[in-house]
């Protein structure tokens, strides 16, 4: 890695690094306690996360006023002029064509500002030659195209992703029109059945993007762009993936004391979390897990989960008695 003189000096200057860190912390405090952040929090509190539509409406009211965006960018620019090593105190939201910062987040929504790079978009389209995927996020999203870059969006539709989603019934996605987007336009996309791609753009896009967490589908779904066929799905909510990883870790550590806490997730709204948790409980303490497994086989709302539970019961019934494995 080749680094410039300024960066070399900063890397050798502990006091300078602490000053940069202090500047970042001060910026975070000013933003988090400032009027714009409070306005978002108040709008969210007023809607109470009642449903996805209510959360989207609350965000729309904040998106219609661009003063907070100008203030935030001016503040970031001033901080960078004071210290070129200033690091904005926001989580990054990057993809191969888009770079963004998550500037607000609570239990109902996350809000990011970002730029879609026209050159990277062109390179991606050129490399894929029309191939690729259409992703349905599983979340209601609200986008404000502060600068639309002369973009035309191609819209896609798919069967609604519900709590009873399965690969076998995912269906296909289809084109649902194409139209230009104007500067300042606010677009609501229901990622549970709608998606879009940028078909064409003449300049970078500057976009505010809100992802509504309320009423999200269990999974985000990917379809093949050329054929419309189902490709695969992933957890729409990162907390579902965290539960899966942590319960696996607890089982691998033989942490039987965690059994009741893990069993609480048997009522999780996502079918694949319920089955993952059931497997880990069986691995942790089969005796204690068996009544839960029987209940799941009889009453779980998702047919695949019921089917897997019944298959597990049959295998247990057919298994030879052995000494219980050591934890």
């Amino acid at each position: 890695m080749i680094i410039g003189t300024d960066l070399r000096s900063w890397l050798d200057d502990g006091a300078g690094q602490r000053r940069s860190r202090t500047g970042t912390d001060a910026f975070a405090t000013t933003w988090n306690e400032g009027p714009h952040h409070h306005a978002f929090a108040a709008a969210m509190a007023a809607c109470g996360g009642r449903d996805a539509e209510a959360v989207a409406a609350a965000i729309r009211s904040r998106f219609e006023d661009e003063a907070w965006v100008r203030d935030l960018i001016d503040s970031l620019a001033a901080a960078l002029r004071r210290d070129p090593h200033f690091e904005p105190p926001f989580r990054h939201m990057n993809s191969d064509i888009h770079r963004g910062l998550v500037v607000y987040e609570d239990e109902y929504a996350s809000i990011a500002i970002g730029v879609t790079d026209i050159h990277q978009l062109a390179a991606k389209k050129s490399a894929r030659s029309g191939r690729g995927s259409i992703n349905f996020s599983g979340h209601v999203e609200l986008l404000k195209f502060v600068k639309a870059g002369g973009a035309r969006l191609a819209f896609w539709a798919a069967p609604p992703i519900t709590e009873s989603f399965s690969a076998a019934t995912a269906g296909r996605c289809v084109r649902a029109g194409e139209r230009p987007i104007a500067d300042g336009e606010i677009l609501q996309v229901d990622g549970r059945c709608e998606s879009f791609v940028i078909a064409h753009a003449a300049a970078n896009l500057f976009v505010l993007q809100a992802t509504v967490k309320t009423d999200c589908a269990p999974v985000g779904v990917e379809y093949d762009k050329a054929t419309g066929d189902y490709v695969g799905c992933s957890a729409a909510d990162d907390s579902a993936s965290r539960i899966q990883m942590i319960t696996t870790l607890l089982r691998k550590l033989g942490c039987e004391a965690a059994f009741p806490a893990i069993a609480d997730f048997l009522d999780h709204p996502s079918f694949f979390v319920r089955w993952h948790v059931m497997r880990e409980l069986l691995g942790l303490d089969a005796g204690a897990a068996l009544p839960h497994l029987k209940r799941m086989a009889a009453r779980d709302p998702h047919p695949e989960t019921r089917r897997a539970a019944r298959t597990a019961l049959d295998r247990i019934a057919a298994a030879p008695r052995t000494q219980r494995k050591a934890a």
Partner: protein
Amino acid sequence: MHPAPEHLAIEVEDLPELETEVSISGSYQQQETGGIICIGIAAGLAIYICR
């Protein structure tokens, strides 16, 4: 009739999977999950080793 479960050795890997395979959460959330989970695993291992 099911055998007494306390005498069963159940390997999680032998249990059935769902027909619908669901990958780990994607997008920027995946990066965050990875970071926090790494800390969680490190803490878990530290507790395990200290026992």
